[in-house]
Each structure stands twice: as C-alpha cells, then as structure tokens.
C-alpha cells in the first residue's frame, strides 16, 4: 500500500496523476462500497454507485478545497448518489409490475441480507461498513461523524438484533 497521505495523493490527482487517484481508490473503495451497500442494500447497485462516485470524484477534484478531507468528501458524494439512486428506484418501482426485493440478488445469504436490510440506519450502516472494510472502526467513526466507542456499541447491538430476527426466521 502506498504510504503517501490522502492530502498528497489528492493534490497529485488534481494535477492529472491517475496512479495517485488509483491509490485513493484502492484505499477507500471498500469503505465507500460499504456505505453504498448499507444504504441501497443491493450489491450490484452499490457497486455501480460506488464506481460512479469515484469517477465523479475524479472529475470534480477541483471542488475539493481541503485535500486532507478527501475521504469525507468522497463519502459525501457517495451518500448523495445513493439518495439519487433510491429516488430513481422508487420511481421505477411505481411503474413496475414486479415487486423485487432489493436483497433478492444476494444469493446464499438472503436471510441475513434481509435481516440486515430491516435494521435501523444507525445500526445497519456501521455494521455493513465494518464487515466490508476489514473492521476499521476508526475510519467508520470518522466518516459517520461519531466516536469509536459508539460505533462499537452500535455494531454489537446490530448483531444482537440480527440474532433475534434470524432466530425468528428459523422458527
């Protein structure tokens, strides 16, 4: 992994260094994907939105005023794009005859993803980000604007809720 800071990589990316931006992608892709997946609860949609987020970020780097805040900035873009995607999904569902569950494409873990989708936002988002981004509580706390201990507590509470709901499904 490149040891240059986000600030340096963002500044180099702004001047056309694509390899620097690739490093930023490698560093933040999973975290942003976790956020997108937690909001959209559909892996394919989350991948699409995540990729579009990074491409848009590359185009709009000139709007980034403080390079050290690249991670928060790219998460903000991802959040907005997820909201747009949700709005589009609602519009298309209104005219669609098929009622497809957002988690229905996620295969073997259908029960688990359905249970995760039913969690409140405060528990679902840190939980998904935690497991998709290699258990980096500090980064999640920074992106969600809260403390590390709060993130830990919410993740454990989310796991408790999942256990209870999955037990109900099995009955």
């Amino acid at each position, binding site marked *: 992994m490149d040891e240059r800071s986000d600030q340096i990589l963002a500044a180099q990316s702004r001047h056309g260094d694509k390899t620097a931006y690739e490093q930023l992608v490698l560093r933040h892709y999973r975290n942003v994907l976790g956020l997108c997946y937690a909001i959209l609860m559909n892996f394919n949609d989350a991948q699409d939105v*995540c*990729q579009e987020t990074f491409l848009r970020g590359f185009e709009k*780097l*000139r709007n980034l005023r403080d390079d050290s805040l690249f991670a928060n900035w790219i998460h903000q873009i991802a959040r907005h794009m997820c909201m747009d995607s949700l709005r589009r999904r609602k519009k298309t569902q209104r005219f669609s005859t098929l009622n497809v569950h957002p988690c229905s494409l996620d295969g073997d*873990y259908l029960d688990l993803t359905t249970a995760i989708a039913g969690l409140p936002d405060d528990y679902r988002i840190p939980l998904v980000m935690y*497991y998709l981004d290699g258990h980096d509580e500090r980064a999640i706390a920074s992106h969600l604007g809260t403390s590390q201990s709060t993130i830990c507590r919410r993740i454990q509470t989310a*796991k*408790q809720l999942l256990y209870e709901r999955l037990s109900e499904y099995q009955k």
Partner: protein
Amino acid sequence: MNLNPCPNHKADIDAYCCGHLSPSQAASLQKHLSECNGCGRYYDALIQQDTRLTAWANSLDSRIQAGQDCLLQRLREKEVYPALASQPWPYRCIWQLAAAVILITAGFFAARLFQPAMNQEQLFAEWSQTIQPQIEQKLAAAVIQQLRPELLQIRNDLAAQMTAQINEASAQSIALSQTMNAKLIREFAEAVQTVQSRDRQVVSDALLRLEEKRLQDKRQTQKAVTSLALATGEEIARTRRQLFETRPVLSESSNTNQ
C-alpha cells in the same frame, strides 16, 4: 429468541468483542461470562453473528475485487484529465473564446470593407444637422450627470469647511469677548471700590465734622444755658429783691384804695 445480558455487563461485552478491554478487564469479564448464563448466551450470539457476517463479507470479496478492478480500468480509460478540468472557466473555454474573437474581428472588418462609400461633405452636413445636436445634448447631459455628484461633493465640502471656519471664528471671538468682559468687569469693580472707598472717606469726614460741630454746639448750648441760667437766677434774685422792696409800698397803696 431475546437475549438478556446483565445491564451492567453489556457495555463491557460489546467493548470486549471490539477488542477495547485491557487484559485484566478481559480476564474479569471472561470469568463473569463463564458464571452468568444470560451474558454467556449474549456473547455466544455475538460471536455467532460475527462468524456469519465475516463469512458473508468474505463471500462478497471476489465481487468487490472485480468491481474495484473494473473501476480502475474505467479510470485508466477515462479521457478527462483532472488538471484540465480543474482549470478555471476562461482557460477551459479558451478555444471558444479565441473563435469568438476571430469571428467578431472578421465581422468588423467585413462590415468596414463592404459598407457603401459616402460623400464627405454630405456626411458632415447630415452629421451636423442630425447627430451633432443629439451628441452635444447627450454629452451635456452626461457631463452634468457625471459632474453633479462631484459638484454636490464639492459644495458639501465647502459648506463643511465654512461651517468649521465659522465655528472656529465664533469660538475665538467668544473667547476674546469673554476675556474683554472679564477685564472690564475687573476694572469696573476696581473703580467701584475706589469710588466706594472715597465716598466712605468723605462720609466719614463729614460724620467727623458733624460730630465735632455737634460737640461744639453742645458746648455752646451748655455755655448759653449756663449763662442764661445765671442770668435768669440773677434776674429772679433781683426781681425778688425788688419785690421785697416794693411790698410795703404795695400794702400801703392797697390800704389806701380800701
């Protein structure tokens, strides 16, 4: 199935699962977990879900990697260079601006090249009749319009300057008059004092003279009274003597009359 850990141990178990407890705290909690059924079941459930969620996340790893590679590929193929995109507006539109300038310049010269030729005198006569008055009128209006604020400014400045000068002169004259008044009052007071002292002297002299006159009169009066008293006494004595001397004569005459 609901999990019911001890309320005072739930936070510790959460922190333990996140690896936030110190070794001593972890040992203490492990002991409690082995003893408390509710907390033990809660911890087991968390571990079970952790295993399940980790497996779920691992199952997505290949798709995440594929998506990441796809993004990197799309990024490499992207033709928009951020350095160019990050330039401010005039530089981004440099070609459009250059084309616009060339078109405008070409249009200007073409218009000059193809405009109909006119007689110079006719043009001047037409200009002096129609355009010149309008230009003069507009120029005058523009000059007035432009100069009005400056004139107003100058007038205000002059008024302010005059007011300041008048105020200063007034203050000086007031100060001077106050000095003069004070001097006059002082002189007047001195004159009054002089006159008063002189009058007082005159009055005291007059009183002194009056007193002397009174004493003199008193002495004269006493002398006169004394002399009058003496004279009166002498007259009375003489009259008494004459009366004694004349009494026999009177008694004889009365007897004669009877």
